[in-house]
């Protein structure tokens, strides 16, 4: 059963939060004395008004959220947030086309980081800040953010929370969801502040530091520069960002235990973290080697730096770039695509498959070989010393199938709009995995502006589906879900 009143009331309340974030951008506009104050204020006003109307119309009635309500609220609120998140762009005239604005906002909230902007530096700072804000909120998740920051909204219904925070295995830090959310938020904010300060220390201006820090910790990928991190041309900045991207790819719960509870061993005992570490190391080495030996004048340090930055950026699905990897030799593209597919740890802000699933998948496949040799053996799949139940294994296989299916659907749509194979494929991989920049003509130094509208809409859909890990959104497209019986 679903209860429209509950759903719209909750969404109405969430919209107040979005209005609040817009008001923060008004603050930035005031600070830099920009002419966007009025457009940002009216965006916030419109959003707050819609929220108020929804809350007013749907007040009273049932207070309990059912499972179905949870899924509808979560999917719908991401769409509504992205629709209304276009207002600052459109009202300020920064992006005039609605499709483009929606693509940019969805890319922001889903922490994808693909952009249709072609001259980022020309935009007012307050609008750039709004782009980063979408990343920063979307990194943790809209509902999660609200639960953590505004417990008095009474939205800490566990069903909303479980519909948004998906993953093969959940780990709660504290029995109460509101406390868990607050702890995660603490580490999120702490990381953002430390990252911003570090960037400033190594020579980035405060505004750029804060913006890049928000984008890095959310593993988003929006930059305040058209040329991304390459624009700064500073090895120190590149190393700092590499480090923080890597940290943001770690499960935030584990990070909390390791740092705040002084239990660093929990990290090293975690199979997923180890997998993550190994993938980063192996790919950095392989790509570094490839760069070192490819024609050009890269020395050992710069090829290592370029390699580790790109590897971490793509694996954590951030999408920053210091070099135009679309110009690298084609063999390396394959490795980059694999990274975009893998993703970092579950429970982090990154997207894509996540290391835990990759690790389990490999073990399942490996076990099939073992089973041929030892037909009667009972072979478990272990993660962090825990045996993974068959139900979880098959859920992961289903996840993989639906992931690939969504990839192929994107490939199909993109090619139907006349884009060549490499571009279509990489756009699809980058969108579903919430990475951002693709390969070919849509690499890190290019903009998505030239894509046909249909591709933009479908990519935005892929971003949403990928961010909410498929089932929550796709469930709404199944007839079973809507049956009352």
């Amino acid at each position, binding site marked *: 059963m679903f209860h429209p009143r509950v759903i719209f009331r909750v969404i109405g309340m969430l919209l107040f939060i979005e209005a609040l974030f817009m008001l923060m951008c008004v603050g930035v506009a005031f600070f830099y004395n920009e002419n966007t104050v009025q457009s940002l204020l009216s965006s916030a006003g419109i959003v707050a008004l819609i929220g108020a109307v929804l809350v007013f119309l749907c007040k009273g009635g049932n207070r309990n959220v059912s499972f179905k309500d949870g899924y509808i609220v979560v999917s719908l609120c991401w769409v509504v947030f992205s629709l209304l998140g276009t207002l600052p762009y459109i009202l300020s005239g920064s992006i005039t086309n609605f499709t483009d604005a929606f693509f940019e906002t969805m890319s922001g909230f889903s922490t994808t980081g693909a952009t249709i902007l072609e001259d980022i530096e020309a935009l007012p700072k307050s609008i750039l800040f709004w782009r980063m804000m979408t990343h920063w909120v979307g990194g943790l998740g809209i509902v999660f953010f609200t639960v953590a920051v505004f417990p008095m909204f009474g939205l800490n219904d566990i069903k909303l929370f*479980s519909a948004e925070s998906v993953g093969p295995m*959940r780990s709660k830090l504290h*029995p109460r969801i509101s406390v868990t959310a607050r702890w995660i938020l603490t580490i999120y904010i702490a990381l953002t502040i430390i990252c911003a300060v570090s960037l400033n220390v190594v020579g980035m201006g405060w505004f750029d530091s804060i913006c890049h820090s928000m984008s890095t910790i959310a593993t988003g990928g929006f930059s305040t520069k058209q040329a991304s991190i390459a624009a700064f041309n500073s090895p120190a900045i590149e190393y700092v960002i590499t480090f923080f991207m890597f940290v943001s790819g770690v499960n935030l719960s584990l990070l909390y235990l390791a740092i705040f509870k002084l239990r660093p061993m929990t990290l090293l005992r975690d199979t997923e973290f180890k997998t993550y570490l190994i993938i980063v190391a192996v790919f950095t080495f392989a790509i570094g080697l490839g760069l070192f030996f490819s024609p050009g004048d890269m020395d050992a340090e710069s090829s290592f730096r370029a390699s580790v930055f790109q590897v971490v950026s793509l694996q954590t699905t951030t999408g920053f770039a210091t070099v135009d990897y679309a110009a690298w030799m084609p063999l390396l593209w394959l490795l980059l695509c694999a990274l975009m597919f893998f993703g970092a740890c579950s429970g982090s802000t990154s997207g894509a498959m996540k290391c835990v699933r990759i690790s389990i998948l490999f073990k399942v496949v490996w076990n099939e070989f073992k089973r041929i040799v030892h037909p009667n053996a009972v072979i478990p799949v272990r993660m962090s010393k825990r045996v993974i139940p068959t139900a979880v294994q098959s859920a992961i296989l289903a996840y993989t199938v639906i992931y690939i299916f969504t990839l192929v659907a994107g490939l199909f749509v993109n090619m139907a709009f006349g884009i060549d194979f490499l571009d279509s494929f990489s756009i699809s991989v980058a969108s579903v995995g919430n990475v951002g920049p693709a390969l070919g003509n849509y690499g890190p130094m290019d903009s998505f502006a030239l894509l046909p509208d249909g591709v933009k809409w479908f990519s935005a859909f892929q971003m949403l589906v990928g961010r909410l890990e498929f089932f929550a959104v796709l469930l709404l497209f199944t007839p079973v879900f809507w049956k009352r019986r």
Partner: protein
Amino acid sequence: MRIVIAGAGAVGTHLAKMLSSENENVVLLDESEEKLGRMETSFDLQTIIGDPTKISALKDAGVGEAELFVAVTPDESRNITACILAHYLGASKTIARIDNYEYLLPKHKEYFASLGVDSLIYPEQLAAEEIATSIKYAWMRQMLEFGGGALVMIGVKVRENASIINIPFKELPPDIPYHIVALQRDDETIIPRGNDCIKANDIVCFMTTHENIPYIRQICGKEQFSEVKSVIIMGGSRIAVRTTKLIPENIDVKIIESDLNRCHKLVELVDDEVMVINGDARDPELLRSEGIAHTDVFIALSDNSETNIIACLAAKRAGVSRAVSEIENIDYISMAEKMDIGSVINKKKLAASTIFQMMLKTDVSSVKCLTFIQAVVVEFPVNHDCLITRKPVKALGLPDGANIGGLIRNGAGVHVTGNTMIEPGDHVIFFCVERVLKKLEKYFK
């Protein structure tokens, strides 16, 4: 407060749900992943997979910081072991569910406490006690005693023949020897005000003293109920065995059990006077041949709530004036009430009362859960200087949903009016909705 519950069985999950809705920090520990199932995604609590008797699992569950540890797995030895370990790891209070009457004897209490088991609950015993009371007073739904019997709370379902129905409370004479704390009408709990009145088929909670029970019986029109002489129990469960030990010897008891092996076991467990019959108690033919028409009370105690409900309906149709059934599914209780099958026994609610008592930080004499209303009755002792002694009752600003049923002063029950001043040394009986309980605590600090 952090509460760790070991064992996600019927009692454990009920407690977990209830406590998490009271905003406690609940951790549910069980070794079976299936049992924990969707608990974590549906309720605001944490589930940990692990054996409650393993130190590592207890540590994972954060027993060290727990203020209350409740072991309610099906096996009493494991519960006791788990409590001992939890105490060792630093849990403040521990409760074990047991299955052995001997453990409950007061002389062993100290020994268990020295082991680290602070409190024991035996839901089957509590259920049997409640059944025994309901046999003694067959015309009531539930009776709870406070202050060693100085005050009693009784729940009665009133019919058309009662003399107190349809009279607004403000028109009742002021010197009535009882106080009505609540009414249950269909699914609604009413805390009565001056303009409310009792209607037929309401369940009325009276607070009164022992000597006025016959008067209450009279005004409720329940005089046709004769003294209970014979009882038929369906299902030879543990509760049934405990019940046979608690009811007076002059009552004739028959247990009908469908499993022959269990029957053989039963005859070893019960006293000689109890007759064990092998058969299905839902069979009207069997009931008739066992003289159901001349039986005073039919008690359905099989493991299956649905079976119990059907059997009680069948027995009532066959002519039993009074039926008691064990219903474990809480959603069925209000349904059973509408079908008019009589008193309901629920082990989970009984166990929950004990836990509630342990949860409150103030020293509470007793907490009792009502089966037919979502409410609890609590006896608070009044210490010096607590908030409640400072103003007359009407000026205290008590939370909605809480109602003073009466107080015990010097061992005697006293009626409370708006002008009563509560004095140190009194015991106050509160009737309150479950969620309000914690708010009341501050009045006694």
